[in-house]
């Protein structure tokens, strides 16, 4: 990804994130989270993670944030009233965040920097032949065809990993989603005092 696009999407993401904690109206905060996640999805696409970028938009901004806004409207919240806040927790919180950022800068200044390895046609064709030779993909399959044509078949590769190496975690994830659904229904059921 060109540098200016990286900084553009990073700026959208960080300004959106800052607006989440700066705005007082919860609906405005939720829309700032949406802005932040759109910038984040742009960064994912720039990292050649097209599938992750798409589900970031579909799941997070499409489903999760709509659920947040729905709940905010259901609860009919007003703007937060100004209240006297004790200064000690605010200062302690800011100190924690500043300490974290200083630590981050210190670690990044010492760690070796890497540039992104090229994903051109030669590299992709080479990895296609390596995968075909190891027997993990078919020589005439969709993945090998796309790799030889110099395209990155991101969704196919993720799907292959998901249904081979990560099959058991995927099934467990299905159970977790079922448990979450049942839990939501149980939590939002009106409890009868006579029970």
């Amino acid at each position, binding site marked *: 990804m060109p540098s200016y696009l990286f900084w553009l999407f990073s700026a959208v*993401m960080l300004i959106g994130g800052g607006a989440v904690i700066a705005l007082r109206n919860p609906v405005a905060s939720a829309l700032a*989270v949406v802005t932040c996640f759109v910038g*984040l999805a742009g960064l994912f696409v720039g990292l050649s993670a097209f599938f992750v970028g798409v589900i970031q938009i579909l799941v997070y901004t499409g489903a999760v944030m709509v659920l947040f806004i729905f709940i905010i409207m259901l*609860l009919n919240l007003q703007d937060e009233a100004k209240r006297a806040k004790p200064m000690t927790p605010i200062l302690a919180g800011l100190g924690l*965040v500043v300490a974290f950022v200083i630590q981050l800068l210190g670690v990044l200044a010492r760690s070796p920097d890497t540039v992104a390895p090229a994903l051109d046609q030669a590299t992709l064709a080479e990895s296609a032949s390596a995968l075909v030779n190891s027997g993990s993909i078919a020589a005439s399959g969709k993945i090998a065809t796309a790799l030889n044509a110099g395209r990155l078949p991101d969704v196919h590769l993720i799907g292959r990993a998901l249904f081979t190496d990560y099959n058991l975690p995927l099934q467990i994830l299905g159970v977790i989603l079922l448990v979450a659904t049942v839990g939501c229904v149980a939590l939002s059921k009106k409890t009868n005092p006579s029970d």
Partner: protein
Amino acid sequence: MATLNDYLLVSGLLFAIGLAGVVLRRNIIVVFMCLELMLSAANLTLVAFSRFHPSHGLPDYNGQMLVFFVITVAAAEVAVGLAIIVALFRARQTIHTDDLTSMRG
């Protein structure tokens, strides 16, 4: 070209913003949204490492699988968490964390 440290810096800053929101804000829904920001910052780190440390010339898809699982579990977590917030609001008529002190020791 943006390097690995640029991505790690941006993701660390997003994490710091989320941490600041969790510590500083008093509205429990905004605190919950800031938790999502922190999860997404971790996702950006995972995807950046997956792109910058290739296996067999391709991005390392193990990292992106972890991102996929994090996003799915986060969706389930949001559903349960918001149901708890709605139940809390029904019981107490507030979502301001300073008013929810009945479990303070």
